[in-house]
């Protein structure tokens, strides 16, 4: 009896709210809306996982903001405080950091899936476009979040951002000042990035997610592609409704459980990474006078960092300014050019190939940026010793040359025995490639991306250095020879015969 009464009370309370809010009906309709049976697939779980991660990021972000001091003078210290003094502060920081990496990864996977499944085609073009904006906003969150960490990487990352801005013709200087909030990286800079990271971008992001999800509900989830099922604007709506009428299943519970299981796995993964790997930094204090640093961006921006190392100087500014708008424009306008036709990946070889090329390219740049072969190894000259076998049976002048070789920081860019920089070629077998004259010229005049040492080396040092370099013939291969030299040394009698 009493149980029945309680139940009646609950129903009455619900009805009281429903009479005034009127959201229950809409929620029930959204939950129970039919989806094509095949679309309740494990391939369709990434969008909801990204949303769950976004909610977690908002929650952990608010929790971090309870302690974080968003001022240039104290941000870094307050992160140390969070890491070491606040109960579980390190774990919350780790969750927020790993959550951001997972979110970008899931958003990218979601995008690849949507692209491969042709889900951007009619009538879901706008859903894709909003999705592209969501990707950019997510990357914006990642970049501004990296600034929140306000360590050395953040400081110099801002410098890199300002340097890129400054390349925009005409308005470069004002843009730099707007970005930094003044003429230098300082208090106003962190404050405005804090505002972007905490108010501006999340606000737009949440609104755009709302629009994105609204369109998924309104248009229905993309039907699972089948080879030969062509999207036509004239017939698509009818076909989709027929499909749903034939084998539609309610989203809740028939479709949603896979989303829920995957979201749980992702959340557990974030928690595992947070526990096991801990929070991201902060690295050194944001003190620009500590110049013994090699700034690097976070994982998902490393490929850009690599691209910037490879652009030739005269092409860098044009490419930096022209490529991003083109890439973003193409991504945005893709569904307008390819809004109809085949959805199945097996019938879209160009699309699959494009995706592969993009993935391999980004992956290659990402990999390169993990070991930065273009950067000099700043302490190789003093830290990487020359193996003893390179000095066996050398004449005194050659040993002097080996000392010059170390002292003049040659190894910052040139590896020997696998140690040293990779900016220039490794020199283990340099004498098999270059003659003495060529080495002297290269050392004194530089060229091919090597500085000239003509003003830095005395003639004696140059002679000693090149004498040492001449001994670098891996496995005692024959030295390089100048074929024209033999001619001059021919005996005069031999010349008579010509």
């Amino acid at each position, binding site marked *: 009896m009493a149980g029945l009464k309680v139940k009646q009370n609950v129903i009455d309370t619900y009805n009281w709210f429903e009479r005034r809010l009127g959201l229950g009906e809409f929620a029930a309709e959204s939950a129970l809306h039919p989806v094509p049976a095949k679309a309740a697939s494990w391939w369709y779980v990434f969008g909801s996982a990204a949303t769950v991660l976004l909610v977690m990021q908002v929650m952990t972000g608010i929790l971090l903001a309870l302690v974080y001091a968003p001022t240039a003078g104290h941000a870094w210290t307050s992160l140390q405080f969070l890491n070491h003094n606040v109960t579980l502060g390190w774990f919350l920081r780790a969750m927020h950091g790993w959550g951001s990496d997972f979110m970008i990864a899931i958003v990218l996977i979601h995008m690849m899936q949507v692209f491969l499944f042709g889900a951007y085609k009619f009538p879901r073009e706008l859903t894709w476009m909003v999705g592209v904006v969501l990707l950019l906003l997510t990357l914006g969150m990642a970049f501004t979040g990296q600034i929140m960490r306000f360590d050395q990487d953040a400081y110099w990352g801002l410098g890199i951002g300002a340097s890129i801005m400054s390349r925009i013709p005409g308005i*470069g200087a004002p843009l730099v000042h707007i970005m930094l909030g003044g003429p230098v990286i300082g208090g*106003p800079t962190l404050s405005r990035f804090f505002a972007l990271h905490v108010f501006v971008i999340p606000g737009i992001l949440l609104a755009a997610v709302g629009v994105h999800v609204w369109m998924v509900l309104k248009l229905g989830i993309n039907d699972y592609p089948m080879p030969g099922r062509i999207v036509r604007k004239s017939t698509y709506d009818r076909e989709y409704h027929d499909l749903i009428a034939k084998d539609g299943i309610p989203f809740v519970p028939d479709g949603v459980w896979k989303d829920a299981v995957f979201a749980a796995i992702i959340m557990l993964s974030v928690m595992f990474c947070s526990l096991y790997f801990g929070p991201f930094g902060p690295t050194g204090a944001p003190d620009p*006078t500590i110049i013994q640093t090699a700034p690097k961006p976070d994982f998902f921006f490393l490929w850009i960092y690599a691209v910037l190392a490879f652009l030739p100087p005269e092409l860098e500014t044009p490419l930096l300014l022209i490529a991003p708008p083109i890439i973003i424009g193409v991504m945005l306008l893709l569904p307008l050019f390819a809004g109809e036709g085949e959805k199945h990946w097996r019938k879209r070889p160009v699309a699959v190939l494009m995706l592969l090329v993009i993935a391999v390219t980004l992956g290659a740049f990402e990999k390169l940026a993990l070991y930065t072969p273009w950067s000099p190894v700043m302490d190789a000259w003093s830290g990487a010793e020359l193996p003893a076998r390179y000095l066996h049976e050398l004449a005194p002048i050659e040993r002097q040359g080996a000392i010059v070789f170390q002292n003049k920081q040659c190894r910052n860019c040139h590896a020997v025995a696998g140690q040293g920089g990779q900016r220039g070629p490794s020199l283990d077998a340099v004498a098999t490639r270059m003659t003495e004259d060529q080495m002297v010229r290269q050392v004194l005049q530089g060229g091919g991306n090597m500085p000239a040492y003509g003003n830095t080396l005395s003639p004696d040092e140059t002679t000693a250095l090149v004498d040492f370099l001449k001994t670098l013939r891996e496995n005692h291969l024959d030295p390089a020879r100048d074929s024209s030299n033999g001619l001059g040394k021919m005996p005069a009698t031999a010349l008579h015969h010509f």
Partner: protein
Amino acid sequence: MAHDETTELPSTAHPEQHEELMRKLVSRSRRNFLFKLSVLLNGAVGAVLAVPIVGYLLGPVKNDLPVGHWVGLGPLEQFPTGETRLVTFRTPATTPWDGETGDMPCWVRRISASKFQVFAINCAHLGCPVRWFEESKLFMCPCHGGVYYQDGSRASGPPERGLFEYEYKTAGNTLSINVHGLPTLATQASLKTPKNPLIQIQGASNGCCGSTDATAMSSTTSTGKQGSASWPA
């Protein structure tokens, strides 16, 4: 437009009601006019409101630093002739909550008793801090491998020009530099210095030869002298 407004109304579910409303709308041209007027009014208010907001946002565009803000780097004895030293100064644009970000390093090269070169720490490529290597007389950048000669000219790597230089002067026994802000390709180039540009733009293919060195040095020195003459502290 009027049609769009009516669809927002809650009682548009029945077509008859909808038509009724439409008829009312057409007949009530006075209310229609008042509605348009209210939209116009709010548009005008919005435009007025935008002025302070945009002005506030564009505030930092005006370079807050008075051009020619001289900062002392210390007594001349600190800088032995023929050497290049790292010096730290407090940027004049600092706020009380800047913390350590308000400090700024630079490289001071003393060429002779009265000739100096003061280089910004920021690589001309993307602003990373360059390091000086005394033995090879090179500046190297850790980010993308930009390399500069001791006179700041580009040696190799992705930078399209040499290091940024501060204008300097020696007053009494003190070396001072003219600080403007974070040096980038635009923020340095846009400065209006009297005759000689603060920095000379160098071609990317600039090699290193004695003659290039000499011209670079002499032009910088003249900039420095002129600076001390026309920019009194």
